[in-house]
């Protein structure tokens, strides 16, 4: 009775996205460099935020649009994340919800 363990990529692969060419997430790099906790690296359920050398890289196309990053960044980080909803029709498309 073992359930196959799904990797995060497997999971994100189950979802449907309409990918915009432009990112709906912007990062203020100076905030992130000064941010000690960097909660976004942990809390994002799609691991949209990845630490790359000296800044936060964004994989916005995986965003589930849950809003967790903004809450974590406002209260636990330095407020470097500017998250806006993707423009109409783009982004995640839940088929079950």
């Amino acid at each position, binding site marked *: 009775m073992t359930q196959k363990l799904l990797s995060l990529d497997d999971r994100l692969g189950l979802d449907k996205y309409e990918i915009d060419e432009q990112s709906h997430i912007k990062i203020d790099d100076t905030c992130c460099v000064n941010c000690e906790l960097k909660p976004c690296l942990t809390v994002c359920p799609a691991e949209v935020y*990845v630490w790359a050398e000296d800044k936060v890289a964004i994989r916005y196309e995986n965003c589930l649009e849950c809003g967790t990053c903004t809450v974590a960044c406002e209260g636990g980080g330095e407020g470097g994340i500017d998250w806006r909803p993707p423009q109409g029709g783009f982004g995640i498309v839940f088929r079950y919800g």
Partner: protein
Amino acid sequence: MAGILVYSEKQQLVRELLGKARQIADEKGTAVAAVYLGESIPADVAEFGDWGADTVYTVASPLLVGLNPETYTDALAGVIEQVEPDLVLVGATKSGLEISARVAARLGAGVASFCVDFSLDHGFVTADCMIYSGVGKNTYKIKTQPALATVNAAVFTAVETGGVAKVTAVDAAIKEPALKIIEYKEKAAAGVKWEDAPMIVDVGQGMNSQDDLPIAESLAALFDGQVACSRPVSSERDWFPEWLGLSGKRVHADLTVTLGISGSVQHVVGIRDSKTIIAVNTDENAGIFSQADYGVVADLHEFVPIFTDVLKAKSAKLA
């Protein structure tokens, strides 16, 4: 004739179509012919006999230039009407897709698109066709005679038979086309597109720096391959203007080696049509390993140079 007629403006594709047509024709005891359309007929056109054609039908006309769909449709339809084959295989190039459909409309025939296999049974053609970009396969019975089918490159294999073909000129009525070609520009041969490369090295975020790119380039060079990348490598690091994936390009190389690619489905869509996939990643749990034929858990920066050397020493030729 009854039998199989083969046409493409790409000579290699003609040979591939002949390979399969010959095999089926031999099983059924029927004939195979190739069609050549052009301004003039080259001297070596009979060489299709080497690849399985019993006959080569030719149409020569000054109007057969620039792949003008109207004149090529007239010519191919003319040959078919004269020869009366059971099945016409047309190479699925853009021009082939266009004129096969026009010919079929004119003759009231059916076209099986992107055929990957077919059979001739009891007087009709059955064709397996790829649907939904390769997710599925439909089998169709084609109810018309002739039946047409379009076939992509590298679906069938050319087989040298060493036969001799009879060359027969066909007098097809070709009308002056309404469509005029004002300017004709050959595409530059340089700068092979990723889509056409036989081998791809697909670089992901696991590669540390742009200075490491020669690692990938050396590997690609062994196979006349191209170095491509995932979206973040393109859009965030700006190493390449394009990327592979759902939102980018899709390749169908014989061999794709991914370096530091984690394997999101959005990216894998871009490479999944590759015949063989090798993945190199430090993370044993990376999703890419379930999408690859061969996985290597190692740091690409250390592994790939050694791998490249071993390939050089043992073999670096795609089968």
